[in-house]
């Protein structure tokens, strides 16, 4: 149970998440392409990480002791960019240049963007990279923690499980993998395309501390992240159950919005809903 101060904090993060969602809607509309579904499902997770959990400094993106975040599901780049801009890594005006020629904001995360640790976009690679960062943290006796967000469809990739084995083997308790369990991948339901359940059981069997939460509830996200900090000797996987398109009624759980932009009318309705 959160106290009143927590509840105020959660309210602030929820409001921030709404702003991020509006940015995402506008960015993908203006770019005429992108991945709105999977960008919206993870807004609450990323907003919590950047505005509540992580130690980081937008004025000094290379600060050696910062917590690290890697967006392994790189197609949610609009969400990461919107958060980095809101946090002050670069001007908010830049967001409208997403996917434009010559823009810093590539369709998938690019490490040239201040605050982006590593380029991503090709699925299955982020957990390996995050594990390398976590190993380095242990080697250098640094206190920083490493977070990475994977898509659930991304867990089809064999490399994810190679990295899962390694992180448990090397007892990387400074590493947290969050799975955006929105239940959909490009071709349909994850359970129809390539069954993932029991997904928490899989992570557990690989030697991870696994937690299942509602990934669109700030209180549950923060509680899981706190729990992860208390776990010693193994990494934590947070299976965050989310809704693709979360926050916009006509997009929720509709797979057509995996990789298509909103029309003008759809944008109007979305922005209106997010302002309510």
């Amino acid at each position, binding site marked *: 149970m959160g106290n009143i101060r927590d509840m105020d904090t959660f309210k602030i993060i929820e409001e921030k998440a709404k702003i991020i969602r509006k940015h995402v809607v506008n960015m993908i509309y203006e770019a005429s392409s992108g991945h709105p579904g999977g960008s919206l499902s993870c807004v609450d997770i990323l907003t919590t990480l950047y505005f509540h959990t992580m130690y980081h400094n937008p004025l000094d993106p290379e600060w050696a002791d910062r917590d690290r975040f890697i967006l392994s599901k790189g197609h949610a780049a609009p969400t990461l960019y919107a958060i980095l801009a809101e946090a002050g890594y670069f001007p908010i005006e830049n967001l409208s240049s997403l996917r434009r020629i010559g823009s810093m904001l590539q369709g998938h995360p690019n490490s040239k963007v201040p605050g982006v640790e590593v380029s991503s*976009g090709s699925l299955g*690679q982020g957990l390996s*990279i995050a594990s*390398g960062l976590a190993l*380095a943290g242990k080697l250098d006796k640094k206190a920083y923690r490493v977070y990475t967000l994977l898509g659930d469809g991304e867990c089809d990739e*064999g*490399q994810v499980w190679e990295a899962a084995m390694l992180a448990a083997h090397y007892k990387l308790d400074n590493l947290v993998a969050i799975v955006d369990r929105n239940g959909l991948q490009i071709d349909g339901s994850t359970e129809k395309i390539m069954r993932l359940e029991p997904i928490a059981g899989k992570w557990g069997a690989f030697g991870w501390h696994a937690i299942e939460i509602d990934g669109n509830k700030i209180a549950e996200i923060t509680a899981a992240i706190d729990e992860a900090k208390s776990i010693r000797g193994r990494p934590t996987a947070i299976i965050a159950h989310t809704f693709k398109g979360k926050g916009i009624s006509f997009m929720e759980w509709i797979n057509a919005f995996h990789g298509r932009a909103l029309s003008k009318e759809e944008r109007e309705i979305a922005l209106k809903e997010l302002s309510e």
Partner: protein
Amino acid sequence: MELKSTKDAYGEALLKFGADNSIVVLDADLSVSTQTNKFAKQYPERFFNVGCAEQNLIGVAAGLAIAGKTSFASTYAIFSNRAWEQIRNTVAYDNLNVKIAVSHAGLTNGPDGASHQSLEDIALMRVIPNMRVIVPVDAVETEKVVKTEISNPGPAYIRLNRVKTPIIFDDSYDFVSGKAVLLHEGVDLAIISTGTMVYEALDASKKLKEENVNACVLNIHTIKPIDKDAIIKVAKETGAVITAEEHNIYGGLGGAVAEILAENYPVPVKMIGVKDTFGESGEYRELLEKYCLTSNHIVKSAKAMLEKMR
């Protein structure tokens, strides 16, 4: 003549220069074969065995590099290619300080057969932006390559051998990354070679000399970025070029040399390499013989080429 494999020299070089705390070494369950086990024994805290998981090998090496380390990632050449996309999309795209130092390249893993030989890797690595592709000739050059790469940030692919090959350089040899080495002068034709085939090229030049053919021998240890000027210079001086490599004739050193000469100074080029086929089990020398990769084959090609041009 002293013999030593370049992978043994690699293992010793890691040990020699490994005191530097920023160096980490990773292997995918082949540390005895790749010789990273020497470093592992001396610096266990900076050695990471990832098990037989090559995609993860590259990703973890990349993560360590992002955190400021110089990562050496080793396995067999052929298996590193399994992580080609990880190498392209993470290591090279972000210009990370990851050295992919791989052993058992070419046909040098003879008896293991085609599945364990690597005849396509130069081509695969050469097309990736930011990637340096280095094929040391011998143990001396290998040590110098490792030393140079430690202080030269960015991705590199270092191609090493299993078999013991002649040491042609001595310690005074001055290795400069990206700079070809003229090992033998000659005006009749140029033999441009890399790695194990450099020794065959030198041997061929001696045999040609006996027949009054003066062949120059150019060692291209760095296939990318390649020493364009040196290649054009020998082409101008001789007017005929033979390339020799333990690799598919497509896309490797021969391809790189042909690209340069076609655009800058077209001369007849004969490529010696494995003729777009897989290898097979056999002793190393037997394979070189069967796939026409010996000094005698170079001599034969040289004479045929000069005859045709007459």
